[in-house]
């Protein structure tokens, strides 16, 4: 009996966690998108540096599907011990909640923000056969030919789609939305002129801009991009305040201890401010941010509200 008691006590002792320093084992960063996509590459680049600073490996775990909601749900329901994190983006936490009311997780209550990593914007490109060279001319053409111009997107409810809707609403033009399964799939039809415009990723648009098949007439950020400083922002082309950008940020499950979040934030921000990281992000067309958890909550809330307005104005629905 005494022996049994000792064995039982030893067994229970195994469950007791001492106050070991964080992190004491490898951390899992869930990326809810397929490998080799922008979110994935960004995550891997950053986590390589953060791992070095933390002294523990941060392993990227790709869990794609359902627009990023499968991976997000996984982290929402994971243990809040700082060993499972999520790389979220606009579509999972700003647009998703408004479009899909039946999400299995609550984007605000189930997560604790850590930091906004980066922000990327899109170029407004048109085929070279279209006789416009600026946003003003494009809007004039659209108003002269209502219902005849259209814009492509990477799917209903994506940021490319909603950028187009926002553009339509602000400019008061009648342009039609034509969804595709990915921005790159729009390009052949854009080149042949069947699609009139597209909000394309600044980096993937480069080859076609160089060969002259496409023209860039605007950029959707508030400030001009260092990658293409000659392209005016849509905001300065007559629509002040027009901004459509994608944020990438790290979340931990709600209830993760504040010290762990503070530690993660510190290392992530430090890794982001290295010159190599800036370069790597520029290759993806993104700019490093590195905000505090409070700033992240504020940014995400603002973006969610903005896109909610666009969705309501454009009456975008997913059944």
């Amino acid at each position, binding site marked *: 009996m005494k022996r049994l008691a000792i064995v039982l006590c030893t067994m229970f002792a195994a469950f007791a966690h001492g106050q070991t320093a964080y992190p004491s084992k490898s951390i899992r960063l869930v990326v809810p998108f397929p490998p080799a996509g922008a979110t994935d590459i960004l995550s891997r680049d950053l986590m390589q540096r953060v791992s070095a600073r933390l002294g523990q490996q941060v392993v990227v775990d790709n*869990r794609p*599907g359902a627009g990023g909601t499968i991976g997000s749900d996984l982290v929402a329901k994971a243990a809040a011990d700082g060993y499972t994190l999520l790389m979220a983006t606009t579509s999972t936490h700003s647009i998703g909640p408004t479009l899909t009311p039946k999400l299995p997780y609550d984007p605000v209550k189930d997560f604790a923000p850590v930091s906004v990593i980066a922000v990327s914007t899109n170029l407004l490109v048109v085929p070279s056969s279209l006789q416009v060279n600026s946003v003003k001319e494009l809007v004039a053409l659209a108003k002269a030919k209502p219902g005849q111009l*259209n814009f492509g997107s990477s*799917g209903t409810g994506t940021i490319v789609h909603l950028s187009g809707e926002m553009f339509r609403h602000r400019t008061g033009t009648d342009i039609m939305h034509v969804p595709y399964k990915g921005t790159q799939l729009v*390009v052949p039809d854009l080149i042949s002129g069947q699609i009139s415009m597209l909000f394309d990723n600044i980096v993937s648009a480069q080859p076609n801009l160089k060969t002259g098949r496409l023209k860039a007439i605007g950029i959707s950020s508030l400030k001009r991009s260092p990658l293409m400083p000659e392209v005016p922002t849509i905001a300065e082309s007559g629509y002040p305040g027009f901004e459509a950008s994608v944020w990438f940020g790290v979340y931990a499950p709600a209830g993760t201890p504040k010290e762990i979040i503070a530690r993660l934030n510190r290392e992530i921000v430090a890794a982001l401010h290295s010159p190599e990281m800036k370069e790597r992000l520029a290759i993806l067309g993104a700019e490093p941010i590195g905000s505090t958890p409070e700033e992240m909550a504020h940014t995400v809330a603002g973006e969610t509200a903005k896109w909610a307005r666009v969705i309501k104005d454009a009456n975008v629905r997913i059944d």
Partner: protein
Amino acid sequence: MESGLLANLALGFGEVFRLQPVTMWGVAFQQVPFNIIMCFIGCLLGTLIGVLPGIGPIATIAMLLPATYALQPVAALIMLAGIYYGAQYGGSTTAILVNIPGESSSVVTCLDGYQMARQGRAGAALSIAALGSFFAGSVATLLIAAFAPPLAEVAFKFGPAEYFSLMVLGLIAAVVLAHGSVIKAIAMIILGLLLGIVGTDVNTGTSRFAFGVPELSDGIGFVAVAMGVFGFAEVITNLEQKEHREIFTKNVTGLWLSWADFKEAYGAVLRGTTIGSFLGILPGGGALLSSFAAYTLEKKWSKNPETFGKGNIKGVAAPESANNAGAQTSFIPLLTLGIPPNAVMALMVGAMTIHGIAPGPQVMTERPALFWGMIASMWVGNLMLVILNLPLIGLWIKLLTVPYRYLYPAILVFCCIGVYSVSNSEFDVYLTALFGLLGYVFVKLECEPAPLLLGFILGPMMEENLRRAMLLSRGDATVFFTRPISAGLLIVTAILLITILSPKIRKKREEAFQEE
């Protein structure tokens, strides 16, 4: 244009032989010709699975797709392509020596090839198969290099209406050219179309046939379907049958071709190459159709048709050249239009997508090194394969003696690992098992699974293009007939339909397929 072609080929060969730093197992190597190595691995694997009956290029490519994530896209695609045309070489070996087609496209090679082996002429048969295949492969590579750029320019004129019509042609062609019963082929295509609908609709965002299961909201993974229906089902079927193989290994002495044999066969090689090059491009075409057509036509044009089936070397030369030419030219629609003409190319579309390459005419301009590198690697691969297949014949023979009970657990394990690694999802593995069961049912019902895969891939693409064409034409359905290319394609489809329905041609088709 000439200098353009040479410059492109130079770029391609440069890419194939490019030395790059590679880190393997923690060791950093500086100057490694990685792409060539991947080409060799692909060809080796292709020959291996070509030789082994019971596993084919579709299942292998599906299995290896996830393993290529870590590789650069060029290397990955070169390897996967090598598997496909390598399998054509390997399949002939078993067809000639054991009367078992290692590949479905080697079926006709069995007819005369095995007879030649029984007459002690196995060496000649194997040589002409390998040399004919090499010639055809080289010609096909040149054709791709010469015709791809102009075809890509034409492709830019392709809008959704044209793509839709081309895919309709492809599906109808798949029916016409499928084995066996037409009704069954249609049924499989429709089943494939239905399975393809599962998921989120691109135009409205509505979830269809997902039954609230989040893993299905992006559709059923094609890797799961391909591996289940081709890989698992094959294993289950093979386990049912007892193994008994008569192998003519001892008769493989002279691997050299006599001058007389060469004179007799070279015409068949030329004819086979032409037929294969042409049929490979067509939707529904590829290695299988090319080999059948070449054999049938060779027999028709021969002065002594009764010698076919009794060891006529032309009966080996023609289909072997045709199947290699067909296998390679079937890359043309993939690399220029981004449209898969057959099930294997459908998997290559998947491979390109996984690597973040949107297949289509812009691949040539946006990633010329990848495009021309792939084409150049095909020729290099063909060269490697001749070397692999002639001197190393003994090695392949030994493989045929491995009992299946050691082979199949390995196949199953690799399939499961491959499927899991696509999305780190156990759900996918269960799905594959389900499709394996389904695949077995298809085998029992004598239904061809390839049309299912084609319908599965082409169906959603067709729907997307149909609706987009209607969107762009503002609801005007006559756009499919008013746009010239689209109209032309639909007319060809109509002709094909009439062909399949006309009784005289139906009879001929059944005759051709009866020779198995």
